[in-house]
C-alpha cells in the first residue's frame, strides 16, 4: 500500500486500500469486497468457471439475487416466459453448486440488487463493490467504490476476488445551497447530466459534494449515484457521514457493536482531504435546479419542466441536428413545443433509481386525495420485498390502490422490460427509471425520465406537468 502524505480524494483512499499489486504498466489487481450477482449477466461466467474447473474464491463475499426477469404480478404461479424461467433456474443451480448466498424469489427480502445490497447492509462504506450491472454505482452513496462490470469480469471476480483496472480520474460535482420545493435528488442528477453530458464523466469517478448533497437522505444519494453511469462515469460516490452511519447501523449484514464503532472511525477517515486534487470540478447552484424531465432518447436530453423541446434548426453541427430530429420523430414531439402538457399513456414508478420507501412516500404525497387520469396505466413497483412491506405498514399501498395505481411485487419490471411489463409501440411513459434509450421500456416505447413526484403528477393529470403546481394547490 503506498503511503503518501499528499492530500487524497475519497476515491484515492478507497482505491489505495484495495490495491493488491500494481503491475508494470500501471494496471492494478484491485481487491473486491462485495460481488453482487444477478441472473442476466452471470450464467456465462459460472459456465466459464465450470469449464475451467475453477471455484468461487470467496462465496462469503458474494451475494446473488433475481430481479431483472421476475414477474411483478402474482408470484404463486410459475414464471410463464420459458427463457426467463431458464435464466432464473440457471442462477439457482449455479448458486447451489458454487455455494453462493442467495435471495430467492420467494424470500421476503428479494428485490432489485441495488436496493437489496444497501438495505441488507451487504454494501458498506469504504468497500469495493462490483456487479455485472452498470447501475452498481448506486452503492457509491454509502461512500464505497462501486461499479458495473461485464460478464468476463464477473467470472474474473468469482475466480480471484479481484479485478484488473487502472485508477480513474477524479471529478468533483458540488451542488451548493438549498433546492426549492418539489426538487428532488433525481432533478439534481438530471441537471448534472444535462450540464456535463452522457460522456462528461468518461474515465472519471465522480464525488458528489456540497451542502445540497449533504442534505440528501440516503435514498436521495442513491438516486444520484445510480445515474453516475448516465453521465458516463465509472462510479459515483458521496463521502460517508453521520447520515450514512445512521443508515447502516443495525442492518442485517453490517458490523455490530464495537466492530461497528471501529468501522465508523475508519469510514470517517475516508473523506477527501483538504486540497486533494480533482482532475475536473463542476459546480451547480441548488437554487437554479427545477423539476426536470427528459424529452429525447438520451439522458442528456433533459429540460426543466417549464422548458421547450429543442429544434434541429438551432444546431450548427449537422450530425447533432440529425440526431435531434431522429429523437423528436421517435418521441413523437414537435421541435420547439413546450414539454408540459404532453399526454402520457403509462406511468412507471420503480427501478433501482427511485423505488425506495422515500420515493414511494414522495409519490404518495402527490397522489393522496387524487385519482389516476382516465386512460392512464399507472404502476408502482417497489424496489424490494422489504420496501413493499414497509410501505404497506404506512398505508401507502392504500393511497395508491385507491387512486387507481397498480401495486406490484419487487423487481426491475418496466425499467427494461425483460419481464412482461413492457410499453407497446408508441406508448408514452413518465418513468422514474434511468434510461430513455429507444426501445428501452419495450420496442417503440417513449420514455420521459423524471422524479417520483413528477411521475405521480403525470399520473393524476394524465400529462407531463410541473409537480409544484399540484403541491401548491394542496398547501
Amino acid at each position, binding site marked *: 500500500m503506498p503511503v503518501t502524505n499528499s492530500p487524497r480524494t475519497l476515491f484515492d483512499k478507497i482505491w489505495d486500500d484495495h490495491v493488491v499489486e500494481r503491475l508494470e504498466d500501471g494496471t492494478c489487481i484491485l481487491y473486491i469486497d462485495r460481488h453482487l450477482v444477478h441472473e442476466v449477466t452471470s450464467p*456465462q461466467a459460472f459456465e466459464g468457471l465450470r469449464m*475451467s474447473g475453477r471455484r468461487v474464491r470467496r462465496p462469503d463475499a458474494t451475494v446473488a439475487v433475481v430481479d431483472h426477469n421476475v414477474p411483478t404480478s402474482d408470484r404463486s404461479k410459475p414464471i410463464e416466459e420459458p427463457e426467463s424461467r431458464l435464466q432464473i433456474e440457471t442462477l439457482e443451480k449455479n448458486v447451489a453448486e458454487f455455494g453462493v448466498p*442467495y435471495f430467492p424469489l420467494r424470500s421476503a427480502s428479494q428485490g432489485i440488487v441495488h436496493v437489496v445490497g444497501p438495505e441488507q447492509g451487504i454494501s458498506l462504506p469504504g468497500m469495493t463493490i462490483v456487479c455485472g450491472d452498470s447501475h452498481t454505482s448506486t452503492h457509491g452513496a454509502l461512500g464505497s467504490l462501486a461499479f458495473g462490470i461485464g460478464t468476463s469480469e464477473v467470472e474474473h471476480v468469482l475466480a480471484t476476488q*479481484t479485478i*484488473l483496472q487502472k485508477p480513474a480520474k477524479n471529478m468533483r460535482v458540488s451542488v451548493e445551497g438549498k433546492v426549492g420545493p418539489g426538487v428532488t435528488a433525481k432533478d439534481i442528477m438530471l441537471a448534472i447530466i444535462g450540464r456535463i453530458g452522457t460522456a462528461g464523466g468518461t474515465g472519471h469517478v465522480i464525488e458528489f459534494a456540497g451542502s445540497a448533497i449533504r442534505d440528501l437522505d440516503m435514498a436521495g444519494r442513491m438516486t444520484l449515484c445510480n445515474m453516475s453511469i448516465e453521465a458516463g462515469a465509472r462510479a459515483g460516490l458521496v463521502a460517508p457521514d453521520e447520515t450514512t452511519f445512521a443508515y447502516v447501523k443495525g442492518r442485517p449484514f453490517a458490523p455490530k457493536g464495537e466492530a461497528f464503532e471501529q468501522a465508523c472511525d475508519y469510514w470517517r477517515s475516508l473523506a477527501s482531504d483538504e486540497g486533494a486534487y480533482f482532475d475536473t470540478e463542476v459546480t451547480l447552484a441548488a437554487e437554479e435546479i427545477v423539476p426536470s424531465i427528459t424529452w429525447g432518447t438520451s439522458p442528456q436530453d433533459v429540460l426543466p419542466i417549464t422548458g421547450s423541446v429543442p429544434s434541429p434548426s438551432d444546431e450548427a453541427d449537422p450530425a447533432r441536428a440529425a440526431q435531434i430530429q431522429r429523437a423528436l420523430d421517435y418521441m413523437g414531439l414537435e421541435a420547439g413545443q413546450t414539454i408540459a402538457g404532453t399526454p402520457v399513456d403509462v406511468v412507471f414508478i420503480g427501478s433501482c433509481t427511485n423505488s425506495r420507501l422515500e420515493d414511494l412516500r414522495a409519490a404518495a404525497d402527490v397522489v393522496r386525495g387524487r385519482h389516476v387520469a382516465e386512460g392512464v396505466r399507472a404502476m408502482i413497483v417497489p424496489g424490494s420485498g422489504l420496501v413493499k412491506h414497509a410501505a404497506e405498514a404506512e398505508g401507502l399501498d392504500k393511497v395508491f390502490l385507491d387512486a387507481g395505481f397498480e401495486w406490484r411485487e419487487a423487481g426491475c419490471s418496466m425499467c427494461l422490460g*425483460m419481464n412482461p411489463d413492457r410499453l407497446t409501440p408508441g406508448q408514452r411513459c413518465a418513468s422514474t427509471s434511468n434510461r430513455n*434509450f429507444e*426501445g*428501452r421500456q419495450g420496442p417503440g416505447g417513449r420514455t420521459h425520465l423524471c422524479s417520483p413526484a413528477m411521475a405521480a403528477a403525470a399520473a393524476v393529470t394524465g400529462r407531463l406537468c410541473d409537480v409544484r403546481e399540484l403541491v401548491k394547490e394542496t398547501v
Partner: protein
Amino acid sequence: MDKFTELTAIAAPMPTENIDTDQIIPARFLKTIQRTGLGKNAFAAQRYDADGNENPDFVLNQEPYRHAEILITYDNLGCGSSREHAPWALLDFGIRCVIAPSFADIFFNNCFKNGILPIRLPREICDELMDDARQGSNSRLTVDLERQVIVRPNGETIAFDVDPFRRHMLLEGLDDIGQTMAHDAEITSFEHRPSRAWVPSITMGTSK
C-alpha cells in the same frame, strides 16, 4: 479467446454518436445463458421492422456491409448498460474491430475481453475512414495490431494507441483469469491484512 493480430476487412460506417448497448442488443435478447447466437439480433431495432423483415436502409443489411468485420462510429460508442452481450452480439455478427472517437468505459473493456479491438481515433480521422468504408468492398481497411497501424485503401497508414497489457493479451489470445491466479499468494496475504478485520463475511445463516 481468439487471437487478434492483423485484420483486413470491410468496414461499416455508422456516423452516429452515443450508440448505446441497448441498441447493439436490446434487452429482450438477454435471456440467453450462452455467449453465442446473438449476432442475428445485433442492432435488432434498426435492422428489422415489426414483422421481422430486414430494413433495407440499415447499413448492416446492405452489401457488402453484411460481411463487415470493422465498425466505425462517432463518439461514446457502447454507452449505457454494462451488458457483455453487446460485444458478444458484435462478435457473433463478425465484427472484430470497432473504431470511434471515444467509447464508454465498460464497453471498451468488454471488447478486449472478447477479442474485439477497440480503437480510439480523432473524429476527423474517423470521418476519413468512414469515407473509405463507403467505397464498399474494394476498399478494405487493414488493422495491424502488431505495428499498431491502420492501413487505408490508398496505402496511407494511421497509427493508433493501445494499452500494452491489453495488446499483449489480444496478440496472444490470453485470458486474464489465469494471469491473475498466478498472483494468488499476494491476494491471500491481502485478505489477511489486520486493517481489513472490520469487513464482515456473508453467511445466509445470519439473516432471515
